[in-house]
């Protein structure tokens, strides 16, 4: 079995896709020297500066030009460096990429991937740490992907590149160095959750980095005799409702955990859907765990206060079982 890091898995996915299809290209700041996190290291040597494109610090132009290029026969992979910086290109993503196919009545499609590294990492403070995935789920036209493992980062990135829709692809910065088994290099279908762990007593739904916190919480809970089922949604639009509903019908208890601010987070959508469709299966109120509605602070003890930890997840799980 091959083992690789989360960052290398994505690089392998992009490299294999670029070898397969000459219309795929990547653009963003510093890509010629590997990108800010090294996730493009060495790719310019193989594909040259025409396809691994170093751009000016012009987020709106990076994303806006990718829209034009995607409508004109190529498949751009856009690197936004930090999800926070993608906010400089919101018109290009929301008003242009997401709308073009619809408002032009299907005359065109916009097959592009926007990589937006997200989340808290190494005391990066308020403008380099956010998890804004729920914003994008609100926009018709966009697909939203949040991989949590090296295997998923490889397979989901391949599927995202092959997808004809604009895909917001949010890798978690804290996972770049995470090593994991990669049993195959096949595309993983978008919209299908991963059951990270099966259990009878409660369902924990999560995605991205917080899945790993949920898995640690599940180990603690197991020692206490509670079997948690952990579901990694992998994609937030579309999201795998049937995996969640099936699980809740079995366990009768739901906890949704995510790093993003809890207010208006995607956990609310999951909770509302389960309340609507599986109310009679519920044996306890649905619980959400997210960050308080506070910008992310720099000082480590303050930053830690906002984190969704295994301890917090386990504590809420115990409440649910009361």
């Amino acid at each position: 079995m091959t083992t690789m890091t989360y960052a290398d898995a994505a690089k392998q996915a992009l490299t294999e896709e670029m070898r397969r299809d000459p219309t795929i290209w990547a653009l963003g700041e510093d890509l010629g020297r590997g990108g800010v996190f090294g996730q493009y290291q060495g790719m310019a040597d193989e594909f040259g500066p025409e396809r691994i494109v170093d751009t000016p610090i012009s987020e709106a132009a990076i994303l806006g030009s990718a829209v034009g290029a995607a409508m004109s026969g190529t498949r751009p992979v856009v690197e936004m460096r930090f999800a926070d910086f993608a906010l400089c290109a919101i018109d290009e993503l929301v008003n242009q990429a997401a709308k073009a196919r619809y408002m032009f009545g299907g005359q065109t499609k916009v097959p592009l991937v926007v990589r937006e590294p997200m989340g808290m990492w190494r005391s990066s403070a308020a403008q380099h740490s956010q998890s804004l995935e729920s914003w994008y789920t609100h926009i018709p036209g966009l697909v939203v992907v949040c991989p949590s493992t090296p295997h998923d980062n490889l397979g989901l990135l391949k599927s995202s590149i092959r997808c004809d829709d604009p895909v917001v692809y949010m890798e978690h910065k804290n996972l770049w160095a995470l090593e994991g088994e990669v049993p195959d290099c096949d595309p993983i279908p978008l919209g299908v959750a991963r059951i990270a762990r099966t259990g009878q007593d409660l369902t924990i739904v999560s995605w991205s980095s917080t899945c790993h916190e949920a898995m640690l919480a599940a180990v603690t809970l197991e020692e206490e005799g509670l079997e948690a089922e952990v579901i990694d949604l992998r994609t937030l639009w579309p999201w795998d409702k049937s995996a969640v509903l099936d699980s809740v019908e079995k366990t009768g208890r739901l906890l949704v955990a995510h790093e993003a601010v809890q207010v208006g987070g995607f956990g609310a959508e999951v909770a509302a859907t389960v309340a609507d469709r599986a109310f009679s299966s519920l044996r306890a109120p649905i619980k959400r765990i997210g960050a308080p509605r506070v910008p992310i602070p720099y000082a480590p003890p303050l930053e830690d206060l906002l984190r969704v930890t295994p301890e917090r997840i386990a504590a809420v799980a115990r409440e649910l079982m009361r």
Partner: protein
Amino acid sequence: MVSHKTANLDIDRLLKHYALMWRIRAFEEAALQAHTEKLVLGAIHPSIGQEAIAAGVCLNLRSDDLLTSTHRGHGHTLAKGADPNQMMRELLGREGGNSHGKGGSMHIADFSVGMLGANGVVGANIHITAGAAHAIKLLKSDKIVCSIFGDGAINRGPFLEGLNWAVVFNLPALFVCEDNGFASTTSTSSVTGGKGAAARAEALGIPSLTVDGNDLISIDEAVRSVISSIRAGNGPHLLVAKTYRLSGHTASDPDTYRLRSEVEKAWESDPIVNLGGVLRRAKVDAVILDNHESNARIEMAAVFSEAKAASWPPLSRAFEDVQDIGDPRQEAF
């Protein structure tokens, strides 16, 4: 009055432009009538007075060249070769419109003739143009992309970012600033620092040319030379075409911010009248010229009646063409 040396004129070519300009004028007048009859409910932005730019630019593009436009894009779209029947149906939100009535006036587009869309966001088409030109370069094609935008757009970020992008990647892009003097209802000069579009482009290393946008012959000549330079691999160019918006910002703009005398004076430089005068002085039969006007009005009256008779799109259209993955026809909630 615009004067040109009669001996050098290519009359057949100018008559093609003249016919197209009348077709644009007649289309816009029909669109305004549709607005008056409340058949167009959303905003429309007529391009009356700016027809020479649409014709002079677009008749110099190849059919496989690409074009992006603004909210004031009917004329450009028609000039690129779109079918006015489909366009009018789109304005009226009817089935058979270019986009099945889902885009309307501000998103008029006809990809079959390389018209990649008008845009409801000022300046947004500049980035799309840069990207389409980038794709052309990657695919090693010899097409070019033309972006037409207004003077209001030069105060938005895309004018800096998109033009810089086009020059650093040496892209085959023609930027045309249709300078009608107004950013919506505000005089553009009152909110613009420095010497305007051409000076800003020159600062980025993009060659710029300023022409009288109401003089078809000047535009035609300028565009021809600029396009041949772009196609020869010399990178992006900017053309600034000075004109005047003879109608209000939208069809429902009361237009109280300009002196009537200013607008009336501007009508004396109507680009269609200008070209008509040149052609008459070149001894083109007045009947031929009049026929172009009447034929255009007859054509667009028929286009309007046909669009009025067209049906609404089936309701299922609302859920089509959103996305493949997570398609609302399977999963709208």
